[in-house]
């Protein structure tokens, strides 16, 4: 192709009218800290006022790995609320928690802390999903007839990844007490609310309010809700079973967090509030505080 303009083929002196506002020297000054979000946590559990045994199970697993560049936190928090008679509920929730935690440990935590292991060529969401499906199979196999909810939160890197089935919940509560739900209940009443057939108030007294359309241990193909959320700079992650949220309204939860200085006392107060409201079910609470 013939050139129409005579071209300068040599590197010529720059002829820049407006000087670039940033120079090479401040390029280095731009280096910010490559910090990852840090957190602290607490949990509490109660059998409630009307049950004689506990069908809830929970895990709180946290580690901090300090390497040359940064402190890298890892957290895995999960609650399972079992159901089905003849101890099957208890077995189901225990199995689910044990199974998913084992998978996460083997497939995420160990490769992460062991530099000789290659980074898994699988996505966090996929690993979490497979871990949940493995737990589902375990429940099917060893707690036939039982079932369980499972809400599992993985804090890793700059993301909070949540896998969820059932009606346990994960909330985000900011420092001003504004409360937002990460999870969607897989309950019949929640579905009816979504369809505009009933309202939240009617749901609380609906005869089928305890009916779930998805749970681990059911003889159905299981589809978990999986999502990743950037870890907030501040505020709280609250994971709880319906023993808390069905009797303690959102504003009271936020108020308890606001009025407590320690995470543990906040957890204890949440349990107490549920029991004071009748404690109709087992109550499990995990509270994670994000520290920027």
């Amino acid at each position: 192709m013939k050139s129409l303009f005579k071209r300068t083929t040599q590197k010529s002196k720059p002829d820049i009218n407006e000087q670039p506002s940033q120079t090479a020297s401040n390029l280095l000054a731009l280096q910010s800290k490559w910090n990852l979000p840090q957190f602290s946590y607490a949990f509490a559990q109660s059998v409630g006022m009307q049950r004689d045994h506990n069908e809830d199970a929970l895990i709180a697993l946290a580690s901090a790995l300090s390497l040359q560049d940064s402190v890298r936190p890892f957290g895995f928090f999960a609650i399972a609320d079992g159901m089905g008679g003849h101890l099957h509920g208890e077995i189901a929730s225990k199995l689910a928690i044990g199974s998913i935690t084992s998978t996460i440990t083997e497939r995420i935590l160990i490769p992460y802390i062991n530099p000789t292991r290659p980074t898994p060529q699988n996505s966090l969401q996929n690993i979490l999903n497979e871990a949940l499906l493995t737990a589902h199979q375990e429940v099917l196999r060893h707690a036939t007839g039982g079932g369980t909810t499972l809400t599992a939160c993985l804090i890793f890197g700059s993301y909070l990844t949540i896998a969820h089935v059932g009606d346990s919940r994960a909330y985000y509560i900011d420092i001003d007490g504004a409360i937002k739900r990460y999870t969607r209940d897989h309950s019949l009443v929640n579905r009816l609310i979504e369809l505009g057939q009933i309202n939240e108030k009617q749901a609380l007294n609906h005869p089928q309010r305890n009916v779930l359309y998805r749970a681990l241990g059911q003889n159905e193909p299981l589809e978990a809700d999986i999502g990743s959320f950037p870890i907030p700079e501040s505020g709280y992650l609250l994971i709880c079973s319906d023993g808390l949220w069905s009797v303690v309204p959102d504003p009271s939860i936020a108020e308890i967090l606001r009025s407590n200085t320690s995470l543990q006392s906040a957890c204890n107060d949440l349990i107490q509030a549920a029991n004071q409201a009748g404690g109709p079910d087992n109550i499990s609470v995990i509270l994670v505080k994000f520290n920027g």
Partner: protein
Amino acid sequence: MTDEWNKPDSTTKEPAATNYGTAQLRIGSTIANRYLIEGILGIGGMGAVYRARDLHFPNVVKHVAVKEMIIQTHDPAIRNSIIRNFEREADLLATLDHPAIPRIFDYFSAQDRSYLVMELINGKTLEERLKDDLEISQIIQWAIEICDVLQYLHTHQPEPIIFRDMKPSNVMINQYNRVMLIDFGIAKPFRGEQKGTMIGTEGYSPPEQYRGEATHLADIYALGATLHHVLTRKDPRLEPPFSFGERPIRYYNPNVSTELEAVIIKALQYNPEDRFTSALEMKSALENLLASQSQTQDIEPNLSTIFSTDVSLLWKFSTQDEIRGNLTIFEQSVFFGSYDHNLYCVDKNSGELIWLYTTDGAVVSRPVIVEGNVIFASADNRVYVLNHRNGKINFSYYTQGPIWSSPVYAAGHIFIGSDDCNLHAINLVTGNPSWKLDAGSPVRSTPFIFEDGIYFGSEYGDYYCIDFRGTIRWRFKAKKGVTGSSVAEKNSVYFGSLDANVYALDAKTGWMLWRTRLGKATISTPCIDGDYLYIGSTDGNLYCLDTRNGKILWQYEAMNQVTGSPIIHQNRVYFGSVDSYVYCLDGLTGNLIWKYQTGGAITSTPVINGNILYIGSTDKHLYALQITPSG
């Protein structure tokens, strides 16, 4: 596997669910001194279904299906109720006489097991047939036959019978291509008030069935749900109950007529009184469809949705070779390169040439305007820095290979990849490199700056996050090259690869959050709008993914590869395809709003400025299209 298959009582096919310690009958064993077990047709939660030979006919081979129910409980009340249910199924079947209902020959109990001996159906369930390509007219035909047998059940004397369990796995298509209903065991008792009750929702059941109020209209709903599944291939058991309305049939299967969709929508109404009043009524609606469909089959769908008034040619600018790269608009000018070696500066309103600058190679790189300079690169190995007003050169910078990447500017530096396998950081003031990073293979992707990291991929699939000093923070390995550029949102970087995956990585750690496989390789750069990510693929589709989990929300099929990148503007997605068209889709639904044909394949990315869309085509023209903004 055998083609013969009678389904067991439960829907599950997970062997895991059957580990009761109660073994299946051995092949070769005989039960009731009459039925020689020859094979297992299926395994369910309550027992298996066997294929057996009836030994009362020693001179001929007569096969039957033997359905087994294993009673595991020792509670006598539950035990009796299970046996009663089983007997009821047997009694029911014995009173029914319809070609779509299997005949029953016998039933008996032995020890902890009860058996039904039935007609063996040679065929496959509709669930299994979901793997096949099914003609819509065929599906309608089967639906008509199902309506027919439902009508028979619903008008049965002395009592109407509600099937209650209509779903693809309970419908068999026999060797004569006729429908057979199987599994009359049902009437899953609904346990009421008890805390923590679970319901094994089939996903096909209507709302009233959860309240235990099923009438014959429940079967109508479940048939609607079954047809919805068959036509959309979206398994309702994986979705929330009563959510069919959120998955429009024609959206997943454009070959379905609006009339057929309307029939199914009517069957799926939330309130029973809004559905068809009888299976007979639904049957005639389907028959009418079949009659009219044969006449209208050849009409091309979709085209009616294109409104030519939505787009018109404002001007086009002719170059001497293909335009494959992307353009930049700055002030009143459009800057773009061509395979004719030139960089052009054209008046964005009139399409008049302002200046051009000729290099020694094809210009594919997208120019960037910084501090009065237009910066771009050429396949002649060089990065050019020109005065953007007159095209006079300020300096050029040599790399050791052709450049297909585009420059980005940050922190006083130009960052650009080259086929010399390096990422170059060029000081814009001095024109000298501050550093080079060896990426191990050609870098054709355009670097992406996010917060204080530089993200780019190489042709061998290495994906890097480096800081402004050129230090690698982390490295990720895709299976094949990463040619497209990245986007970032909320701490994640997203990019596509020649390995056909779209990746979402934690921008700080490089850990994969999700990946989603497209039909074929992609070199398109994704764009993001809220929770939606758009990306093209060489499989000919433009995909819309959920950024939170990578799920494909919709895909739009162009007539050829989509190698260029989409852009989003006022909730609409714009992109070009190798099929020569520029497309405008609704960003939410993927519905076509308009398309505009150029004279050649489009590999570049459109830019919208004002109400004008600019895009280059391999027909050697840059197009300026007047578009109508969305309402």
